[in-house]
């Protein structure tokens, strides 16, 4: 199925036997049922931890006939493939940088000493994907922190080393790696066998009510066994191989544009090969202190974000952010030109959320977030403007996305429903 429905560009070809054994940690939950005649939906979530200067991003006019702003001019070619959303944010997000932790979760009061995070959109969707892809999701970062959190509100350790990500996706493990993974699966089976034999011994000795409780455990053993089985079948399937050279050196910390561009390329490859359908990327603040290698820029990215409306700083900030939007345009171009099925672009199947956890990075304001949604089977080409005083919950947009992805979901997190005005194609 995998290789039939994906019409990859020439650079991709499937080669003979190659094995990659997923780590036990990444074993995915229940097997998803899927309509095989349709190409699957995908979602990308890209968060810019240091904001995006609003006046250069948000159009003045609402609806379809808005005038392009300086930033949007960089992606004008895809105007009908994206929607700009204003007047949207997480209620009680908390202040500043900490809110990147809850950008995909909507958990309130990030950064407060008693903050407790909740499940992120991508992780909820990953449960739905199950073992249909080799990896249920990828969580990436340009520096340190990531966007994906488990149902317990624990951050999934993000990956950032492009070479390692490339190896994980496309390179057969060394015989030693394969042996140790096989080994680990065998040990998992051995443990499950042990539990099963103890459960059956116990069963005979227990009163009826207690037996019911242990039946749950027996079911759990069976479910985990199924997951091991899925993991094994992925082990046996060859990894897709791409002719692209493995990424070499990750640009230095301050080159956030170079770093994100490199990760964008990997993200496209991962989607094209259907290695995963869900990717999150946080361009976090950590790289913010160094001066980006961009002409006319002499201050660090983080310092510039606190421009305090100083014109000299704003001018530099614009240069940086425009460079970042150019990189984003590159991502959209790759997604658009990759065809899935005749007449169907990868972009058409992929919801791309691009934005920030800060509406005004200069004052660490977490309302009125810059949010752009591209692709993924929605009617685009407009500026959807909501009340800037009384923002709609960002989780409404997440609810719309989850539903488009095929997850039957009640309003996600603090959402109250789907996002008004965003229509499916």
């Amino acid at each position, binding site marked *: 199925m995998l290789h039939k429905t994906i019409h990859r560009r020439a650079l991709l070809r499937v080669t003979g036997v190659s094995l990659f054994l997923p780590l*036990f940690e990444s074993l995915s939950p229940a097997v998803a049922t899927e309509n095989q005649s349709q190409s699957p939906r995908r979602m990308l979530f890209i968060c810019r931890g240091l904001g995006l200067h609003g006046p250069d991003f948000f159009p003045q006019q609402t609806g379809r006939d808005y005038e392009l702003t300086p930033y949007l001019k960089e992606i004008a070619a895809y105007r009908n493939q994206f929607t700009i959303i204003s007047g949207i944010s997480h209620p009680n997000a908390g202040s500043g940088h900490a809110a990147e*932790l809850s950008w995909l979760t909507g958990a309130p009061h990030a950064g407060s000493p*008693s903050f407790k995070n909740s499940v992120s959109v991508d992780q909820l969707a990953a449960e739905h994907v199950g073992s249909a892809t080799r990896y249920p999701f990828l969580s990436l970062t340009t520096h340190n922190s990531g966007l994906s959190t488990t149902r317990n509100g624990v951050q999934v350790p993000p990956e950032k080393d492009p070479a390692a990500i490339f190896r994980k996706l496309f390179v057969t493990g060394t015989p030693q790696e394969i042996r140790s993974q096989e080994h680990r699966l065998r040990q998992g089976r051995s443990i499950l066998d042990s*539990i099963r034999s103890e459960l059956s011994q116990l069963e005979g000795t*227990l009163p009826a009510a207690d037996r019911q409780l242990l039946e749950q455990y027996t079911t759990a053993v069976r479910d985990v066994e199924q997951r091991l089985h899925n993991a094994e079948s992925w082990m046996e399937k060859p990894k897709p191989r791409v002719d692209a050279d493995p990424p070499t050196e990750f640009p230095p910390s301050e080159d956030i544009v170079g770093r994100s561009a490199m990760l964008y390329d990997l993200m496209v490859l991962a989607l094209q090969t259907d290695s995963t359908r869900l990717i999150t990327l946080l361009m976090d603040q950590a790289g913010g202190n160094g*001066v980006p290698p961009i002409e006319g820029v002499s201050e660090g990215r983080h310092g510039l974000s606190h421009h*305090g409306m100083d014109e000299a700083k704003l001018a530099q900030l614009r240069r940086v952010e425009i460079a970042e939007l150019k990189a984003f345009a590159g991502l959209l171009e790759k997604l658009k030109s990759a065809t899935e099925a005749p007449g169907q672009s990868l972009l058409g199947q992929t919801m791309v959320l691009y934005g920030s956890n800060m509406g005004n990075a200069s*004052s660490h304001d977490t309302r009125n977030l810059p949010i752009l949604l591209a692709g993924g089977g929605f009617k685009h080409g407009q500026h959807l403007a909501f009340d800037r005083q009384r923002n709609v919950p960002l989780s409404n947009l997440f609810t719309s996305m989850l539903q488009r992805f095929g997850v039957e979901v009640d309003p996600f997190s603090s959402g109250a429903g789907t996002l008004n005005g965003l229509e499916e194609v």
Partner: protein
Amino acid sequence: MQSVRTPLPKKFSLQGALRFTCMALVFFRSLSFGFNALASDIPAVIREFAKQACYDCHNADTQEGDLNLEELSFEVEDAKAFSAWAKVKQRVQDGEMPPQSEDRPAAEITNAFLTALDTKLYDTDKHHQSIEGRALARRLNRDEYQNTLRDLLRVLKDYRPGLPEDGRSLGFDKVGSALSVSAEHLQSYMLTARDALNEVIATGPAPDSKLVRYQQRWDVKHFGKDFYSRFAWSFGDQPDALVRFGDFVERIVGYRGAPVAGMYRFRVKARAWGGETVKARIKAGDERNSNTSWVVTYAEFPPEGKVVEVTTYLRKKDTLRVSPIGIAGTGTQHRVEQMLKVKAGFDANTYQGPGLAMEWVEVEGPLYESWPPPGHQRLFGEVNLDIATHADAERVLREFLPRAFRRALTQDEVVHYVNIYDRAAKDSNFLAAIKVALQAALCSPYFLYLNAPPGALDDFALASRLSYFLWSSAPDDELTSLAANGQLRQPEILREQTERLLKDPKAAAFNESFTGQWLDLRKINATTPDDRLYPEWDELLEWSCVQETRSFFDEVLLNDLSVTNFMQSDFAILNERLAQHYGIPDVKGVALRKVKLPTDSVRGGVLGQASVLKVTANGTTSSPVLRGVWVQEHLLGKPVPAPPPGVPAVEPDIRGATSIREQLDKHRSDDNCAVCHAKIDPPGFALESFDVIGGWRESYRSAGNDMQNSIQVVRPLTFDARTFLRDPALRGPLKSRVAQGQIVDASGQLPSGESFTNYLEFRRALLAEPEQLARALTQHLITYATGTGPQYSDRESIDQIVARSRNQAYGLRSLIHEVIQSPIFLNK
């Protein structure tokens, strides 16, 4: 903590029957279908009463309250029928049914009905307990699992974040029916077992443990040039110290985080900057991520300086984070803007407002008792991992398994695990193979479940029940050896062991878990008070009010004080911040201590404590209904049935137009509502004098803009930097104005008919019945200790516990002893 919706309890539970009324009522309908024949099996004395008193309304046509009593099955062996009839009995016994407005059968008919029904229910439950046992088997909850790993393997890391959250039933995460197991659980148990074994098994040389002192000065190399220019306002550089004016970048200059996971000792030398003593928050964990760092404590530093020592576990790269609090505003935005606005001429190096001058920090670690560490030695003894054999594996497992399973093992059971080792050893070295066997043991139902056959608990099961009650962890060697010798059942030894366990530091787990759930302290941050209405709420108050209630519980427990102290006490456990909040003078500093309260202070007892008052409100408003239900269930042990479906909640109007009392009065004029609300509302009304953060109020605060009628609210923790920068003479805390709404009316009438006009009178009325408090607490302790709520036929045992406790003036410690010595505790 989210509580799960639990199914109708499978066991015959009195509390369950009451709590699940609503569901039970729905079940009446389904049960009644086709049960005509069965209805005639009802004993005559019961049918006679029902015919006279019930069928008029509760028949197949009317089914008032969704109850068709005419056709309700009397096969009470069925759990649903049982709880339905138990409910019927309770309502009649309490005089709620038939309604006062109806003709009631003669007393002897009613009594005969109650006796016959009671006998039937009692016998049925007794019989059920003899066959099935009283308590369900249950798995360890997340805390117990963590503590058990800690004690079994001597691991230090907190593994709880990797485990699914536990369900709760009857208020506790100890109840078998709510502690489900799924594939997620099993998978995290498998991973955690592997990680914990990796943590404890030392394969390398001893890590280098050293002590380094880091002088705190501005260091451009350390912070980065750009950063300094940006946030200069946040730091002042002095010849011997770095002065912090906020909690930006809480790094220790020069320190790069823990080189390896382990215990570390920090000694922080700092002094208050700018005059008065400064309070500080001390956190440990990830330097950048507030989600993976935790508050260790709050401390204070005087102008002359002080060394604060903190020993804590750190993961690799974790660090200690020390920051002054209350320096300038609360939110980041507030702080930054405030300071930047006055940036012209502002120099952090000469600024004389409050700050924390950090002089140096000493870091020592990783600390370990021995190498290999104790956990490794306990696991492997003298076994040399490089040359170990099958015989060594058998020796290791023979030692380990009884500790893990908390009982003696048969030879076959040991062989089962040796076989796992042997199979794994075919293609692995000793260490890898023994790990598989150990990992399997840590995923075994014998490790994960607390379980015993029906009847009296054997000594091992008793040891587990005792240690999971008081330590939330496995029995230690002393308990286990007493169990192995068959001595633990002796009442005197059991009493001695109870005392020993209560005195052990591990008993802190009992305090945390029991108060965390009985008094809902774990919900302290479930809501954040609206900062326009309650600007004085701050992180120190949140932390302190939880400490207050925990310390209060400890005080009552330690000194065997009467449980009536939970309602009224002549002391409180306070620090400066709490005392400010309560308007009690002369308490200084962050440390909590026992304070004698003035006569008629509203603060003695948990209902006057900010923690309880906060968890029973929603951050913006308090509802007498919700608080009333809370008092009924948590303190008086009288669970209140859920409202009938389709009844909208009564919500306070924060614009202040109509009072909640007016809304409720309307509500109570309906007979159907009045039955329950006559019980629910009075405690809620009495507590209206306390606002959502536990402050005393004469009037409600209002979200309106009418500042004609407003009060000034002082934020004692928070320094008003803006005013200070304008005029240093105007030094002081930040103040705000909040509009006032309607006057509070805290009067009410108890179901007994007794009226009260305020909280103190209400409290006095409740104190007249200390037995009710003792009985309620007994029921909670039984649920907590046995993992199963009070059952129908438990009442003699409960009566006996309460009666004996009365002889000891209802002392809490005595009560715990009585629970442990009771048949309920000693049997499955």
